[in-house]
């Protein structure tokens, strides 16, 4: 009983918060102005509690397992959700269904927690669906806008299709190995032709969720259509959670098929970076622009997965570290976009011309975030990219690394284009001063501090590596 409480504590705390919100919803309605701070405090408490009582162990007949690394990954996601509740506070305060929004968001987060902890394909599939279906409902949250429901429709259909493909892969894997328990599966895989076919199905479902290139087409539409709080949740939290479980699957479970997935990863990562970069060059809407830039960033994450040192946890450390930094930088960018689009209704890059004149604080946060996404020192994004590419280079596959570096240079162009528009372009009708509320300001300052400090404080990387 005691073991049950400590090993599942992040899930239990989250379930507690979900039930609390349900009771608030059922009871007399509380105004959004007083409910939102309560939710923010609860999420902060959830994040702080995530640092305590982290023990390794297994539960439910080895269907659920947790280690300190997994607890840390869950806590990164907790931090991301807390930051979203801060930086998107303007939109959240206005939405008529605030408790439902957080119910769906935290249910999806609960699904991600179970997904990261799953040691069984059945639990993995169930939690993957729990992490996807609420997000599709969230994407439709602007009920009267056609764009929102169109994005949600694209999301639910493509995710249902991808889970069908995933299930077909799982059924073939079950047929050839006779088990759905992940540790046993790792022992029984032998690389027969049917298993490789099954693995390709399995892999493509992950590629859908991560929006790796041949499967990326839903990403930009869903990002543009949904409300900005949902977009930031999708681009940061879901991507991070799927990247975490993808690492475990590749390095622990499908290790016998290393030769197959290594080549697939190399090809797909190049395709992802190139397509993400080229499409990001021509975007005008800032949400679409950030969507394609997030596709390119996923390509860089895949580079780290190709490295040979996965037995020494270098790859997983680099990816976890990068996701932490990515949460800070992307949420800062989305936060500024959210404030501006909520207060002025502007979402195009041209609307940001001359933005610095009246909004120095927002401009500096946006510039920091974009520098970090582009990987310019001393922001943390540089160190994140450095470790990703260093681990990717452990293959001694230098032509590949040169292609990656060229893609980095291309990505500099479009990030700096936005920075130039904000700081240097003259514009007669520049955006007037946008008021920034206290929670949004706190969130943006936290993101900025994260961008500046995470890279310089080297003990963070050492701490992740030591877990």
């Amino acid at each position, binding site marked *: 009983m005691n073991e049950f409480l400590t090993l599942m504590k992040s899930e239990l705390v989250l379930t507690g918060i979900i039930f609390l919100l349900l009771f608030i919803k059922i009871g007399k309605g509380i105004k959004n102005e007083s409910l939102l701070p309560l939710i923010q405090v609860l999420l902060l408490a959830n994040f702080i509690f995530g640092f305590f009582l982290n023990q390794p162990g297994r539960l439910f007949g080895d269907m659920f397992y947790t280690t300190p690394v997994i607890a840390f990954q869950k806590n990164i996601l907790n931090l991301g959700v807390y930051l979203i509740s801060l930086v998107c506070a303007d939109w959240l305060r206005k939405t008529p269904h605030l408790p439902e929004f957080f119910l769906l968001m935290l249910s999806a987060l609960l699904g991600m927690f179970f997904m990261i902890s799953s040691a069984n394909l059945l639990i993995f599939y169930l939690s993957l669906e729990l992490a996807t279906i609420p997000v599709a409902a969230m994407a439709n949250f602007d009920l009267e806008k056609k764009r929102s429901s169109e994005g949600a429709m694209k999301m639910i*259909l493509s995710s249902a299709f991808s889970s069908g493909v995933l299930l077909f892969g799982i059924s073939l894997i079950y047929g050839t190995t006779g088990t759905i328990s992940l540790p046993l599966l790792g022992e029984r895989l032998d690389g027969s032709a049917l298993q490789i076919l099954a693995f390709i199905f399995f892999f493509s479902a992950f590629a859908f969720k991560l929006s790796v290139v041949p499967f990326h087409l839903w990403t930009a539409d869903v990002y543009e259509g949904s409300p900005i709080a949902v977009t930031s949740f999708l681009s940061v939290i879901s991507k991070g959670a799927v990247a975490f479980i993808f690492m475990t699957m590749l390095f622990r479970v499908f290790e016998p098929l290393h030769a197959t997935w290594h080549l697939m990863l190399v090809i797909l990562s190049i395709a992802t970076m190139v397509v993400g970069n080229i499409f990001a060059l021509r975007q005008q809407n800032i949400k679409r622009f950030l969507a394609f830039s997030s596709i390119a960033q996923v390509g860089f994450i895949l580079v780290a997965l190709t490295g040979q040192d996965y037995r020494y946890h270098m790859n997983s450390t680099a990816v976890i570290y990068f996701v932490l930094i990515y949460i800070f930088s992307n949420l800062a960018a989305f936060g500024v976009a959210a404030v501006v689009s909520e207060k002025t209704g502007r979402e195009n890059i041209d609307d940001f011309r001359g933005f610095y004149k009246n909004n120095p604080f927002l401009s500096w946060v946006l510039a920091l975030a974009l520098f970090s996404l582009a990987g310019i020192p001393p922001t943390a994004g540089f160190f994140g990219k450095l470790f990703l590419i260093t681990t990717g280079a452990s293959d001694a596959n230098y032509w590949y690394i040169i292609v990656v570096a060229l893609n980095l240079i291309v990505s500099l162009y479009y990030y700096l284009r936005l920075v130039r528009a904000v700081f240097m372009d003259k514009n007669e009708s520049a955006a007037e001063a946008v008021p920034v509320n206290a929670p949004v300001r706190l969130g943006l300052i936290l993101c900025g501090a994260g961008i500046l400090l995470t890279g310089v404080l080297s003990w963070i990387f050492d701490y992740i590596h030591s877990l």
Partner: protein
Amino acid sequence: MSFEPGLYHILFVSTALFFIGVLGFFTRRNLITMLMSLELILNSVNLNFIAFNKYVWPGQLDGLFFTLFIIAIAAAEAAVAIAIIINLYRNSQSIDVNNAEELKY
């Protein structure tokens, strides 16, 4: 003379069903029909699991349980999808995918 279907017959049927579902999903332009194609895909997976459980790994229950959960999840997925489709219909008076084209490129 009676005919006993073997594993290969069932696998042939389920794989055919899977690809019929994929074809329908890609070619149909009506959202409800696309959802039906998705159900075909999921049901082909169910057939696969049952067949593997009966012929290859008798005595285990993993495949059967997986099937039960897939049926439940498919219902949940269809519920959310239909809710979204109804909302799309309210906004644009159409459930044809070709009319849902505000977001492109």
